[in-house]
């Protein structure tokens, strides 16, 4: 068994890189991190009508998320209880029922077993169908259209699980009167890297942008003089980072909502709807909270870049990225197309930003094949000791710069607490007293 205190020392910003490679640690994560956390399942608009379903994953577990006839949503394991065959084999669609193709057990939209072929002859009418439906995801929560689920009955309520992160999440989720919709279809690709590289970067890492993405802006901006000025300005912009409950959000402060990356057609819509956005989330938050975000453990988005994704773990050395582009639901068609194309061009698997990230993560994972490399401590100490509270009236721990790894340390803190097998009440208690200590130290 692994000893978590040997693996990460979050308060010191020290990481033993075997957490990215050890199969035993990975199995521990499936059980102690993913099976106990709130995971993103689907967006409301993916389930347009009764019978609409998507098949997603909770870590490695295939899960069907289904719109019910009464408008509610149910989610259950995509696994027949007879011999474990997948009961639905399409990625999404509209169904009236689900039938296992192996022996023909049939399930209704709620995931109840309703038909067993030859029930009388083969089972002598002795099977209690109510006991043999697929495993239900026992807790679902719809936060402003974003549907999350957890297997853990003892996990905190979704709002408590998010904590102050909800304020940062709502810079996206609560931004528009009519809410968000997704560009139809997920973009899915495979990167040979540990899931924590991706989740951590989206929680905590603005620092990689000037180096990793040095060429992305070359594609977007033709004039070298304009490019140089833009790069200088954006690197020098003041910024902030939030960390709490394992989540993270980081952003450069912007003087205006426009220009957006999507260009003039979307800018025009944003300007026309500026007052709406300010009324809903406040001018201060709308201008500030525009950057990278991770809800622990594996749901991330870039507020202003209109891309969100889940990093599905596939063993210690692989992830599947499932990404979506989101849009204001009531934007005009030109504005929607502008967002859609700009996000495809920058943050799809062929996007001029996205391709650079996969390159880094796969190379790290390759190097970690080495025995010596796996023993070599990683440095996550940026900004250590410079954590703040109440910066600019933003809730939670907020640094006064975006170049810090406070949220990375927070993510590994939550990871370590879960991995050491602490119960949810114990974790919540520890977090509270840590926060109190920090606040006192800050005031002193």
């Amino acid at each position, binding site marked *: 068994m692994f000893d978590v205190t040997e693996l990460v020392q979050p308060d010191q910003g020290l990481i033993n890189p075997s957490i990215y490679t050890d199969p035993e640690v990975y199995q521990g994560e499936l059980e102690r991190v993913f099976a106990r956390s709130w995971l993103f399942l689907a967006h409301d608009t993916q389930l347009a009508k009764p019978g609409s379903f998507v098949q997603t994953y909770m870590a490695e577990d295939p899960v069907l998320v289904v719109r019910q006839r009464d408008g509610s949503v149910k989610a259950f394991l995509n696994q027949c209880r007879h011999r474990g065959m997948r009961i639905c084999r*399409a990625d999404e*669609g509209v169904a009236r029922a689900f039938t296992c193709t192996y022996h023909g057990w049939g399930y209704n939209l709620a995931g109840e077993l309703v038909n067993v072929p030859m029930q009388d002859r083969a089972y002598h009418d002795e099977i209690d169908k109510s006991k043999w439906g697929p495993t239900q995801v026992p807790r679902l929560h719809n936060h402003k259209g974003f549907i999350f689920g957890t297997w853990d009955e003892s996990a905190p309520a979704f709002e408590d699980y998010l904590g102050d992160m909800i304020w940062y999440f709502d810079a996206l989720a609560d931004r528009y009167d009519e809410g968000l919709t997704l560009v139809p279809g997920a973009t899915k690709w495979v990167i040979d890297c540990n899931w924590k590289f991706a989740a951590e970067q989206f929680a905590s890492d603005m620092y990689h942008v000037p180096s990793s993405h040095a*060429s*992305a802006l070359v594609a977007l901006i033709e004039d070298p003089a304009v490019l140089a000025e833009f790069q200088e300005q954006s690197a020098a912009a003041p910024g902030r980072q939030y960390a709490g409950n394992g989540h993270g959000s980081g952003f450069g402060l912007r003087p205006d909502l426009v220009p957006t990356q999507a260009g003039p057609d979307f800018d025009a819509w944003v300007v026309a709807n500026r007052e709406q956005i300010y009324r809903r989330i406040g001018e201060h938050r709308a201008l500030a909270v525009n950057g990278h975000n991770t809800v622990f453990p594996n749901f991330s988005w870039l507020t202003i870049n209109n891309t969100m994704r889940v990093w599905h773990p596939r063993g210690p050395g692989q992830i599947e990225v499932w990404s979506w582009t989101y849009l204001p639901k009531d934007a005009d068609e030109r504005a929607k197309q502008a967002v859609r194309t700009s996000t*495809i061009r920058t943050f799809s*698997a*062929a996007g001029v930003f996205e391709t650079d990230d996969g390159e880094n993560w796969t190379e790290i994972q390759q190097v970690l094949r080495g025995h010596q490399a796996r023993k070599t401590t990683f440095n996550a100490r940026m900004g250590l000791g410079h954590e703040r509270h109440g910066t600019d009236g933003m809730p939670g721990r907020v640094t006064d710069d975006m170049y810090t790894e406070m949220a990375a340390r927070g993510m590994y803190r939550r990871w370590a607490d879960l991995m050491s097998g602490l119960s949810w009440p114990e974790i919540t208690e520890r977090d509270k007293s840590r926060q109190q200590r920090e606040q006192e130290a800050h005031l002193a």
Partner: protein
Amino acid sequence: MSKLAATPHTRTGVDVETRYEIERFLYLEAELLDDQRFDEWLELFDDDVHYWLPTRMTRTVRERDLEVAGRDGAAFFDDDKAFLAGRVRRLASGRSWSEEPPSRTRRLITNIRPVRLDSGEFEVRVNFHVLRSRAERHHDTFFGERTDLLRRVPQEPGFHIARRRIVLDTTTLLAPSISIFL
């Protein structure tokens, strides 16, 4: 497979000589990409080109027509000429880390099926298999079908690509990125 031309066209076969010219053109294009002569490659595209690689998902037979994403759906590429030029600029920047050092690619373009539209343009479907080798041991393979709309031009090599629709046979891309062109 949906067609690229905006309006319905009568499709007729092409003569052997035209077929030869089209094949020669597509092989030249593949060679320019494999040789990383991106500036020359870019010149093969019309100014109003649409270069598009929609996503694909697994659907039941009943919903098979929804398998490939439509014009308002998710995509890997959805470029115009200006953005293709931007990508080429990026590749030449020396800081495009997913192609610096560059990948080595090998393109197999086969089953070339040209038809003439009554507009005088050509619609050409091909099968492709693109192999990419990267760094020490990394290896990706991309396979599927391309549908091009070609226009004759007076200058060499005789055609411009006005539309390109690329459809991969994979749903989940088994590669860390598509940092090359298809």
